[in-house]
Every structure is written in structure tokens, then in C-alpha cells.
């Protein structure tokens, strides 16, 4: 008993140093092979860091593709407070939120069914992607706001649609931040002349 107690204490101390300190520090060192990935894929525009490529940001303007609704933090898209709504399928709050979002979206693009990912909050609240269906749904609004043809917008979307990884894993998706930055680089928002 006493012998095993002494070993327990020593073992906890020694392995904490080995597994709790040396191991993660070693991985930080080796992760320098991929410095961009290890540091969160930050994107810089005109010398200013404008986001992480894989973390969602809020977009509400008509000239931008909108991400999925977010339950991260009080106001959504809080990248220090990730999480979903955790509302069950019969929760009245879920039904009400969806009803409101559906009404807004239907007004914007009448007669088209609304892709489900566009009106459901993601698990992390930081989902950087939307489905190609959700991007296609928003094309008319963006074309109008930016005075572009729908086909021109569609072309940008297609160029930035990622298929299944290695042609097999996961699902096809479009990165919202990347897409909006490309649109801005082609035609900066401030030059749109407040088209609404």
C-alpha cells in the first residue's frame, strides 16, 4: 500500500512532465512544418488581418454571401465561445427562428425552396462553409447588389466550390469568407455606390 502510494505520486509527477509538457511542446515544434495551418490560417488584406479562413464571420449586407446562423456567444460568430443552439427538433424556439429566417429569405428570392443549411445553426457556430445549394440561392441578391450578371457571380462561386476531399470524403462546400474576399477584390464594396 505505502509502496504503491509513493509510486503513484512519483509516477504522476514524472509522466505529467513527459506527457503534459514535453509532448505538446514537441508537437508545437514539429508543427512548424505547416506554419499557416498551425496558427489558424489567418488571412491578411492590405496589411490587416481580416479573419481566419476556417472561422465564420457575420455578413448581413446584400452584397455579401451570408454564412449559416450562429449560436456562438450572445450575438453569434464569437470565436472565443463556440457552440450550437442545442435546441431539440420539437423546440418552439427553433421553429420560430426558422420561420423568421424563411420569411426573410423567401422575400429575397421568391418561389425557391430554401436550402436547409442556410436556416440551421451549425454545431460550432463557426462553420466557415455553406453548401453549393445555399450559395446558388444567394446568387441573384449578390448579382443585383453588385450590379453583376448572375452568371458572373455563379462563375466565382463555381471557382471556389470545394468538392468532396480527394473526391470521396465529406460533402461539397463553399467557403463564405474566401468567396466574399474574392468578390471585394474584383469590385470593392465602397465602389458599389450603396446599391440596394
Amino acid at each position, binding site marked *: 500500500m505505502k509502496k*504503491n502510494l509513493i509510486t*503513484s*505520486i512519483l509516477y504522476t509527477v514524472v509522466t505529467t512532465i513527459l506527457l503534459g509538457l514535453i509532448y505538446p511542446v514537441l508537437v508545437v515544434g514539429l508543427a512548424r512544418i505547416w506554419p499557416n495551418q498551425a496558427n489558424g490560417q489567418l488571412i491578411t488584406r492590405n496589411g490587416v488581418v*481580416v479573419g481566419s479562413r476556417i472561422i465564420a464571420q457575420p455578413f448581413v449586407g446584400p452584397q455579401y454571401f451570408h454564412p449559416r446562423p450562429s449560436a456562438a456567444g450572445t450575438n453569434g460568430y464569437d470565436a472565443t465561445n463556440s457552440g450550437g443552439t442545442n435546441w431539440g427538433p*420539437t423546440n418552439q424556439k*427553433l421553429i420560430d427562428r426558422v420561420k423568421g429566417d424563411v420569411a426573410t429569405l423567401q422575400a429575397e428570392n421568391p418561389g425557391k425552396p430554401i436550402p436547409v443549411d442556410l436556416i440551421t445553426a451549425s*454545431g460550432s457556430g*463557426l462553420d466557415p*462553409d455553406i453548401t453549393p445549394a445555399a450559395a446558388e440561392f444567394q446568387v441573384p441578391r449578390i448579382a443585383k447588389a453588385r450590379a453583376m450578371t448572375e452568371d458572373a457571380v455563379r462563375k466565382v462561386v463555381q471557382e471556389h466550390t470545394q468538392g468532396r476531399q480527394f473526391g470521396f470524403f465529406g460533402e461539397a462546400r463553399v467557403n463564405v469568407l474566401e468567396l466574399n474576399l474574392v468578390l471585394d477584390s474584383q469590385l470593392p464594396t465602397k465602389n458599389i455606390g450603396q446599391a440596394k
Partner: protein
Amino acid sequence: MTLNGWLQILFYFVVIVLVAKPMGVFMTKVFSRERTWLDPVVRPVERVLYKLTRVDEEREMRWTEYSIAMLLFSGVSMLVLYLLERTQQWLPLNPQKFAAIPQDLAFNTAASFTTNTNWQFYTGEQVMSYLTQMAGLAFHNFASAAVGMALAVAFIRGIARREKDTIGNFWVDMTRATLWVLVPISLVAALALVSQGVIQNFKPYDTVKLVEPQQIQKVGQDGKPVVDASGKPVMDTVTEQTVAQGPIASQEAIKELGTNGGGFMNANSAHPFENPTPFSNFIEMVLIFCIPAGLTYTLGRMTGSQKHGWAVFAAMAVLFFAGVTTAYWAESRGNPLLAGVEQHVSPLQPGGNMEGKEVRFGIANSALFATVTTDASCGAVNGMHDSYTPLGGMVPLVNIMLGEIVFGGVGAGMYGILIFVVLSVFIAGLMVGRTPEYLGKKIESYDVKMAMLYVLIFPLMILVLAAASALLPQGLATLNNNGPHGLSEILYAFTSGTGNNGSAFAGLGPNRWYNLAMGFTMLVGRFLMIVPMLAVAGSLAKKKIVPPSPGTFPVTTPLFTVLLVSVIIIVGALTFFPALSLGPILEHLLMHAGKTF
């Protein structure tokens, strides 16, 4: 459901089958202290470790000493984690200057990580310093997994040995599990995950300038939205987003490999920094199953009956496919209460119930992950189980209720299913009227009593505490959903805690009652179930081998597989069906009747 979805699921399973044998052979060598190709690097480290910690590697233990060593180590290391949480504000590697964790939450978390549960009543990126994450939480991810593997191997030795008093040395088993299996695989996996975009750094949180500033409602000091004279809400403009960072990849790898499941971030493996791509998701799922699947092969090899190992594997495979098929089907059908929404599969979207799920994983990979993480006692999630459809969410719940014996947790699943094997041969023995035998060992009244103790403690904790919570005001205070879904939240919490899984219907919030009650069930669910299990191992090791006779029930045939699956389902169903019918089953019926809460 799509063809590609099914192919992804099948491909995953094929990979697990292919991994099982090499992992099993390797682990057999490791635990039998035979030479492996890692010896030149690892053996010197092992020797130094024994010297520093005063372990005599040649000395074997009886089951009682083995239990005591395991309990002492768990107790000491749990205390260290508690102290680390309470003092993190004074320690280094805390760039966000997080304060000490409150007492009851620190206890809950220490119990949670020591027992391999990794239930989380906190938001990692808001309260835990990098040091607490690494040296406290990730350390326990290694330690609790190594303890689990040691126990599984001790149990297998109990079956394999004859007329011996001892079942191995706890310290040696744990050390070899760590140095030969957990650390090397974690290192490689962590780097593979970094390549996919899992972050690994010590920098303070980044601040980025939003491309489009966000308008939010201004909140006054009383916590209520501020309104102007005409009653309209006053808006504030937010121009920046703070992005949490940290050494995640190193923790992510062992979190999955050790079937721990505790996320660095609150959203766990749904967070893009923990699980950025479909391929990282695939790696994480393979990590969860590779050791448990390998252990079934180790079982066959160490007991000299490889066919028995595969018979057990087959039973697990049946339960795995039943689970994933149900979850995939239910989630693909979507939520009938969402009007005006396109939930069908099309070339442009996978459709289905996407609330709480990520686009890059879609329905197939979310359903698969939920099944895998609860078949094993992992508990990591890549989507929010609370927002699954009633039947889709029932799959993870039932998986844990059956005892997480489908490949199982690292170690824990192995001895869980072996208890069911003992029960199955006992029942088969009763049916043919002979003393039951298992691989030549007579199963006697002591063994069955201990096995039953193991089987009974589990539902006792879940049902009694869930019932108590449903009656107490404190138990209802922090629910996130009303109606039958609220009961499902409570039921899931105690099932996950007692089963040491750690996944959640995460809407359920913490308070003092849940912190303490959950902490208690996690400790009971781990340690009170391990001791009878080790008692069976010790009792089996002492027995003589009886040569098989025509009356012996063979444990290598499809008939045995069918019997084993039946025993598991009957025990699980009889125990939990009433509770399930009041939770998810009732919610399913009401959802299709158009009822909301």
C-alpha cells in the same frame, strides 16, 4: 441517404477491420513484454521511468494489489488536476489570464477526466489556461486511457492464465500502453491533424478586423437590451472578432485515440480548429476505434482462440451497423416541423436535419461520428447530439446504455463485453443444464455474482439519479428544452456520466447539483465497476483448465455471436426501454403529430 454516404461508412469499417489485426498483434507483443521495432527508442525511456518511480518490473500483482495501485494512482492524479485547476491563475502558459475554476466545477472536471469520461460543464476556450489543458486535461487523456488498457489486458490474462494468483503488474502495463502505443500514435496523428488545419501554438488569442462590421443590440449594465425613447433597440457596432488559439493538435490526437473525447474548445470536434476537414474527421474516427478493435484481436491471441476474438468482433459489427443505419436514416429524413425548407438530397446539398451539424461533414459523417463516439466510450462530437432528431439522437444514447461495448472504450469496452460474454456462457450453460465454461474455465457462482454486480450498478446510477433530477427543482432549472426532450437531456447526462462517455445533450447547463451528482456518477461508473471486473479476472486466473467436452458451449461460432448480441440487447432493453419510451420515443411520435414545446 446517398450512395457516397454509404460508401464512406463502409470504407471506414473496412479500414477498421484492416487495422484490427496489426494493432492486435502489436499490443500482444507489447503487453507480453516481447521485442518490438520500437524497443531501441522506447525501452531506455521505460527503464528510466521505472527507476524514477521505484517500480520493480519483474514483480507481478494479485488482483487486489492491482486494484489498489490503480485506485491510488487515479486518486493522486485526480487531486493534482483539481489543484491545477484551482491555481491556474498563478501558473504560466495562461495568456488570457483565466481565473481559478470554481470548486464544484473543478471537482466535476477532475472526476470527469480521471475516469476517462471527459464530460464538460465548462467552455474550454473561456476558462481553461493552456497549461491546465496540456498538463491537466491532456495528461489525463493519456493516463486514463493507459489505465483502461492495463485493466483490459489484466482481464484477458485472467482468462488466459491457469492456476496462477497474479494478473500482471499495473505500473508495467500502464507504462507499456503509454510508451509503445499511445505516445507514438498520438505524435504521428497530431502532425497529420496539423497538416489538415488543426492549430498547435501557444500564442494569445488573435484579434481580426471584420470584413463587414457587425451590428449588435446594446446591452445595459443590468443585462437587458437598451432601448431609446421610442422603444427601438439601440445598436452597437462591433468591428473586431477575437479568435481563440492554443495547442490543440497534440490534445486532439490523444483525445480520440484514448477514447476520452474532451474538447479543447466548447464545440469539440465540430469546431473548425479541432476538426477542419472531412479527412481530419476520418482520421479522428479511425483513432477512436483502432485500439478497441485491436484489443479484440489481442483477446483472441492471448487466450489462444483467435476464432473467439473474431466471434466477439462480429457481435460488435452487428451492433455497429444497426446503430449507424438508424442514425443515418433518421437524420437524412430531416425535421418535419420546418416548413418551406428544402431538406431533400440534391446534387448541390446533402439535405437532412442540419441543425447543430457542419456543412463539411453533412449527414453521413455526422451520423457515423455520433455512432462511433458512443460505440466506444469516446464522447467527442462533431455535431450537437441535442439537436438530432429524436430517433437519431436515441442511437448514441442507446449505444451508451448497452455499455459501450461495440469495440468499446480504450480498455473499458473490452472488459465490458467480456462481462457480457461471461453472462452469455452462463445463460447458455443454464439452457443445456451444465456448468458453464468459458475457454476451458468453469464459470461459478462467484464469477456470475460479480458480473451481475457490474451489470446492476450501471442502470442503478442512471435511473435513480435521472429520476431524482426530474423531481428536484435544481434538476429542472438548467434544462435547455421542454417536453420529452428535456427528459432526454437528463437521461443522456447520467447515462453518459455513468458510462464514462462524456458526450452530451449539451443544452443541459451546469449548477451545483449537476456538478456534484455527475461527478459522483462518473467516479462510481468507473471505479465501482472496475473492482468487480478485476475480481472476476483474479478468480478466473486461479482456475484449472477443463478440457472441452461435447457438452461445452463453443464460443467461436455464429451461434455464440447471435447469443451474445441477444443477451446485450435484452439486458439493455429490459432495463432502459421504459425510460426511453418517455423520452426520445414519445418525442418522435409527438414530432410527427406536429407538436412543439
